[in-house]
């Protein structure tokens, strides 16, 4: 396990949408899944997860429902809505384009200019 990276500003929303797109999750589950997929390389402020979840639900991209957790406790489960799915698609596209451009710029050798 290498050093953890701080989350780049504004990417938490996208990560939550992605995490939830793989199946309904409760808040703690979202945290676990992001850590799991990222192979523990991302540092997420646990508390800041919830304001983000509330914001996404407020905007209608995810929806919540109370259900029962794996250890038989009541937990609030979030799932992706249709609008959220479109949103994730758009965000992902944007991110990929951006990453490509940045990578292109950073990868430029002096003789290429």
């Amino acid at each position, binding site marked *: 396990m290498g050093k953890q990276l701080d989350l780049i500003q504004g990417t938490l929303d996208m990560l939550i949408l992605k995490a939830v797109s793989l199946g309904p999750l409760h808040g703690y589950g979202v945290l676990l899944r992001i850590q799991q997929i990222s192979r523990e390389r991302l540092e997420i*402020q646990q*508390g800041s997860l919830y*304001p983000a979840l*509330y914001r996404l*639900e407020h905007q209608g991209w995810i929806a919540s429902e109370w259900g029962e957790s794996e*250890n038989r406790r009541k937990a609030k489960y979030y799932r992706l809505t249709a609008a959220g799915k479109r949103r994730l698609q758009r965000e992902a596209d944007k991110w990929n384009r951006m990453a490509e451009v940045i990578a292109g710029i950073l990868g430029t050798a002096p003789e290429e200019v």
Partner: protein
Amino acid sequence: MSIVSRLVSWTKAILTRSRLESEMDAELHFHIESNIADLMKGGMSREEATRQTRLEFGNPDVHKDDCRSSLGLRLWDELGADLRYGGRMLRKSPAFTAVAILSLAIGIGANSAIFTLANGVLLEQLSAPHPEELRLLSWISGPKLAMNHLWGDTSKTATGQYTSTSFSYPVYRQLRGDNHSFDNLFAFKDISRFTVTIDGNAEVIQGEMVSGNFYQGLGIGTVAGRPILPSDDSAPGGEPVAVISDAFWAQHFGRSQAAIGQTIQLNRIPVSIVGVNAPSFLGAQLGRAPQIFVPLSMQPQLIPRPEGSLLEDASYWWLQIMGRLKPGVPVGKARSDLDVAFDGAVKSTLPIKRDTSLPRLTMLDGSRGLDYLRRDFAKPIYVLASLAGLVLLIACANLANLLLARSAARQREMSVRLALGAGRMRIIRQVLTESMLLASLGCVVGLVLGYAGRNVIPNLIANSWQPNLLQLKFNWRVLAFTIAVSVVTGLLFGIAPAWQATSADVNAGSKEAGHATPARGKGLAGKIIVVLQISLSALLVIGSGLFLRTLSNLYATQIGFRPENVLLFDIDPPSTRYPAGQGVAVHRRLEEKIAAIPGVESVTLTSDPLIANDSSIDTFAPTGRTPHAGQPTEAWSNHVGVHFFETMSIPMLYGRGFDEQVTATSPKVAVVNQRLAEQFFAGENAIGMTFNSGDEKHPIEIVGICANTKYENLRSEPPPTFYLPYVQHEDPGLMTYEVKIAAVGEDVVNSIREAVRTVDKDLPLIDVRTQVAQIDATTTQERIFAVLTTALGGLALVLACIGIYGIMAYTVARRTNEIGIRMALGAQVRSVVLMVLRETTWLVGIGLALGILVSVGLTRLVRSMLYGLGPIDPATLIGASLLLFAIALLAGWGPARTASQIDPVSALRHE
């Protein structure tokens, strides 16, 4: 999408707030517990895991706050907190709160009441679908009118042309035939008096005669039975059917379905009720509420004229015509099309001489039907609305001042808030919330006042013997207006204090222990507001002075007769029972019967009662003379009874009055007033001279000259008038009886009623009133203005008084130190008092000067409403100035005394 979901989520969050909070707790708790459990699985002790989780998770309260922010609840929560805080502040100073709310409520209530009036009178539309599609026909013509008789409104334009909305029936028939631009051209005429007899009881009601397509054209139906149909109006003579108003239905039939099909007598003609109008439909003339609607075709039976049917008379113009524009037809095209038809109709029905002016068709907005209300009330309403607006402004100024003083006292609080990191916007918002809280409380109380006062003005307009027809509705429009006014008010008086609050200096405020020495500018702001307040009050006081003096001038004028102890009522023998020629006989009999009643001193009757906004003008042509250019050919006329001059106490100057020898067949005689004698027979003896009026064959001899009397109203000078004995009138019709009695009382009226019943039991006494009340009724508008401006002016003075007191008390408090030093150095009590009063006088002087300056500009606008004085009236200006100075000294006296009682020693220790 996002906005919708955000709105839904926000609303849900607010509505299920407590559930949201507990769910939020549960959710965070679950997270923490799960994390602890996972850590413990990894081998940590419970304490260790809890500590670790707490570190990783952070403060749950902070996250919850962020969650609420995410849901957009933050503003809401802060608003709630501000409101609670504002409420606490208001409760803490109940006197301030009461004064503030009351002064706001009075200002807002006055505006609300006047808007209710404006809403009913200026904005109300006909109760028909899409009233905006309706057009009212009208015409405009040069001075040589083609038609002989006009029944209805005629007005003269600035260019000397005549306009009217009256048409003849033959013209209406032709227009209808040639119409292509309107769905329906329908016609109506309001009849102010029908005598209706139900079960033997006679009563006078208003009616409307309508064409058969009237209901179709307006697009309205009835709530019971059927409307008047084209078939009712097709045959001459017509079907004797009637539709009654909802009010009439309720009053006479208790809203029973059995009313349909019943036969009632209308002007003694049996008509059967076929339908009932909806409660909201009050006919096609605004401000009227006819109780019965009959087809136009019944005119010859209902109101017969010796000259024949109005339906065939092309020279008699009386009918109003309206239509609903066909969709897609431009107004201009509709007008020009119909104008062609109109021109043809006029030429084919009227004899057109070479110099006759041909009328041109014009179209008016018909959404309000035939509308005299706007013409009569628009200007008074605008004036009243401006006055009410002024009062509200003064209330605003007052409140702004009080709040400014308070915000000075709260300087320390604001400094602390700023020091603790509150943003300036946040503080402005909080202070504004307090102002808005005050404004909304004022709005609520103002609405109550406005609702209670909505009928005050209509009741002032109504007179004692006629019901108030302006039943004003308190609808959503009034509500919206009142709320809007309150919001603007709140912003207006709240902005200065809010601004002031944020200018607090973080350091200065907290260093000084509560009683700050505020910057110079603050006292200045308060003084400017007080000056403003005084100038506005000066405006109102000057206005009320002008209207009060107008009223007293009106009542001080010489009317030329004695109105005391004279009882008035109208008798209208229906022509259906008393055809031409028989009217005189019934009036004669009534006159004799009434004269015989004990307590009655003398009786007369007139075709036009005096000072009742009523007069007749007829041609007056001295026999054998050709009038030279510029000499009038007309004079005012009145048909009167034999005892007219003694009943009204009009002195006979030369010759004699009328006596019992004058009959319908005896030579025609007249009495003229002095002005007429001077105007037509200057330098000659008018007695014995003859003149013609209308009838060329029977010249009239002048037998007496009486003193001048005012005729139509109190404002106009006595016009040149000639009086004719009514017995020589062929068809007097409705006459007003004047009965001079020893003392006005109900029993005399009852005796008179009894006497009339012995002559004809179906003749009702109409509009019983005293001559004094009749005169009062013509000065309604003047009295409304005098009463309202005086009330508003008084209110303004009280508010100004509070304002002056406040600012002076504040100034004295601020200068305690300085005054103490002055006194320690030997200043006299007198000079300290004078110092304070001098400052007060300065404030008032400047405010007054401003107010007078503005009033000079504004009072010109009400020039036509004044009487006996110009818009710049020195007496009023001087009176208003003295009053304001007196008030100012009164208000300044308290603070001046406080200043004079300052103890130098304690004042120096003061800080």
